[in-house]
């Protein structure tokens, strides 16, 4: 089936099998491998991207469901001049990542959270990131990063 998906402002048109997962489309068709596959069962959130501005798990969506949608991945967060998105900057400054595998998903979930709730409490940040797992268990600094970004 032919689908057209805009990813980070660039239009991608392709003939895909209906069973193609959105995360496959992003990684293999668009070649954007910043979006990671972690658990592959919609638990860990490593594959989180924005679909029309809202975080979703791209391992649990078919590419055909995203036909016509605008998607943002971690590669689309930094400015054209390479300047980091404020959330990426906050993660860097607050040591919000250790191994880094969960980080793209964390950043996408956290920016979606702040779009809906610009001044969250610490508890609201923790609840808002309930769909993202960090196997380094670096949650403390991840939460601090999101709170710092909200303040800045």
């Amino acid at each position: 089936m032919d689908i057209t998906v805009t990813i980070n402002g660039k239009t991608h048109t392709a003939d895909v099998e209906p069973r193609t997962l959105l995360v496959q489309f992003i990684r293999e068709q668009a070649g954007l491998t910043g979006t990671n596959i972690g658990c592959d069962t919609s638990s860990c959130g490593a594959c989180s991207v924005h679909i029309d501005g809202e975080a979703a798990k791209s391992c649990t969506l078919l590419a055909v469901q995203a036909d016509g949608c605008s998607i943002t991945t971690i590669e689309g967060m930094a400015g054209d001049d390479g300047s980091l998105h404020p959330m990426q900057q906050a993660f860097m400054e607050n040591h919000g990542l250790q191994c880094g595998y969960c980080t793209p998903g964390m950043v996408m979930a956290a920016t979606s959270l702040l779009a809906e709730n610009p001044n969250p409490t610490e508890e609201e940040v923790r609840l808002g990131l309930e769909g993202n797992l960090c196997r380094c268990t670096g949650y403390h600094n991840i939460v601090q990063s999101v709170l710092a970004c909200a303040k800045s």
Partner: protein
Amino acid sequence: MIPAAFDYVRAGSAAEAIDLIGQYGDEAKFLAGGHSLVPAMKLRLAQPTVLVDIGRVADLSYIREDGDQIAIGALTRHMDVENSPVLAEHVPLLAHAAGHVGDPQVRHRGTIGGSLAHADPASDLPATTLALGATYVAQGPNGTREIAAADFYHGYFTSALAPDEMLTEIRVPKMGGAGWSFQKFNRRAQDWAIVGVAAWQRGSECGVGLVNMASTPVLASSVASAVAGGASAADAAEAAAAEADPQADLNASVDYRVHLAKVLTRRALEASAG
């Protein structure tokens, strides 16, 4: 993990979706948000040969007052149920429970109708709408019919819906200021409940629904009868498992589930008491 191959068709309306599912027969499935179906397909627990995508049927996403009920379109997302001012005013228990489904990413995509039609007894919303005395509206080739939530669930992932019927609307009575509580016991925030309890009380009236205590969501009628008869929360909660038939799994034995149901019901009754 990749699902088994299937054909994909997209419906622009409920009528078109019902027509399509009729053409393809029992091996076809409706795809709404896909957040129950796609994981099952990836694990090859479900292998439909055709998916009829109803996710773009925009006129089935709404929440509106209708007399003493609130009507919710089946394709309304969990996030929209959670944040609805209409539900916050009239059915706060349902809005609150919707905020406990999965996680924000799941709630951005999953729909109330999809969750109910999936008929997973471990899901939050079947038991919650059951406790609230909801009615579901199903549309088929011969028109629509109403199904009481109490008559809808037949067993694990099995409902009263015919293969060519589609859940289109959920009708929930306004709570009229009733006290309410939703108790969900799990190990990680995003998990399904090991046991959950949704309860409301108004005077001697009371409704209690149990999550993950049988092959269907359970209406704990004995608890409601005990409350109506003037029993204390602790005494009424002793009857929590009277209608239940819990199974053991990795998370809990049968005895532990019964214990949890009583404790969570007591807490829910105490929290929802006027």
